[in-house]
């Protein structure tokens, strides 16, 4: 009877334990893992610079994934985890950099390109007036050719 009771108590715990995932040395719930992946997706791996920390096979990326997960388990807010990384590696670590004097040109580029294109387009159209009428000699030559 006692054994059955123990099993009854343990069963939900076992079911819960099965739901846990372990990644990069940290065990966490699927919800926590999803949060950690969302953070890692926004951070650049500094070893292979066009991959996110989540995608990279570099050892450093694995260590950083572990740190993110530890902090997620501790309940550190997303923004604080991001700040932890920026403090160490600079804003380059953010795959989506913040708008700052350094990145102003980057974010203004689509608008600038549109303006420049617009100016070029209208300048080209304005000059597109009808060509000067043909002279008498040209008309005669045209008739001959046709």
């Amino acid at each position, binding site marked *: 009877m006692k054994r059955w009771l123990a099993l009854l108590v343990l069963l939900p715990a076992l079911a819960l334990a099965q739901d846990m995932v372990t990644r990069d040395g940290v065990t966490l719930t699927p919800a926590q893992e999803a949060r950690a992946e969302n953070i890692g997706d926004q951070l650049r791996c*500094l*070893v292979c*610079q066009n991959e996110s920390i989540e995608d990279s096979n570099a050892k*450093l990326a694995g*260590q*950083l994934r572990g*740190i993110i997960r530890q902090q997620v388990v501790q309940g550190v807010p997303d923004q604080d985890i991001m700040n932890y990384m*920026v*403090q*160490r*590696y*600079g804003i*380059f670590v953010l795959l989506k950099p913040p708008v700052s004097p350094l990145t102003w040109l980057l974010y203004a580029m689509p608008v600038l390109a549109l303006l420049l294109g617009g100016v070029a387009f209208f300048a080209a159209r304005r*000059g597109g007036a009808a*060509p000067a009428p043909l002279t008498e000699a040209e008309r005669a030559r045209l008739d001959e050719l046709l």
Partner: protein
Amino acid sequence: MSPWRRRLLFGIPLALAVAGGEGFYTILRRMQANNYDPHALPSPLIGKRPPAFSLPGVAGMQGFANTDIAAPRQPMLVNWFASWCVPCLQEAPMLAKLAASELAIWGIAYEDDPQALAQFLAQNGNPYQRLAADADGTTAINWGVYGVPETYFIDKTGIVRWRYAGALTDDVVDSVLNPLLTKYA
């Protein structure tokens, strides 16, 4: 279409293409001359003190903590390296040369095996006045180290003034390190 206009329509794209080519060629030439690395990152530590750490010595040498480099008497280098790192091997002669010029170099061995490290120093010389081991790489992450070798220039007041990622070359020493040594002497 006026001839002027036609000349502009031909000339402007041509000028842009030439300017672009010139730009890319300059980048490539400077990459080849080793004074431009498009992957290099500015370190957030510049203008600040290194974060708190205390690392044990390795290979029979004394380790150090951030407090030990808070106010060095002379500008110094902290060199992150590892025995398993090929550029570190290439860098060894340059570090030996700098150490011989009485520049203080303190080393931190990054995720290294003490035995392999001792062998590396025996083969390539030991330019370090002190040598600490960051066995699990935690201090490296706090410094923002993203590979080895990395070299930090620390001025007399303990402020980081420069970080170089990659093996120090004659060119880098001449064009950056020596001017820094003069500036912060």
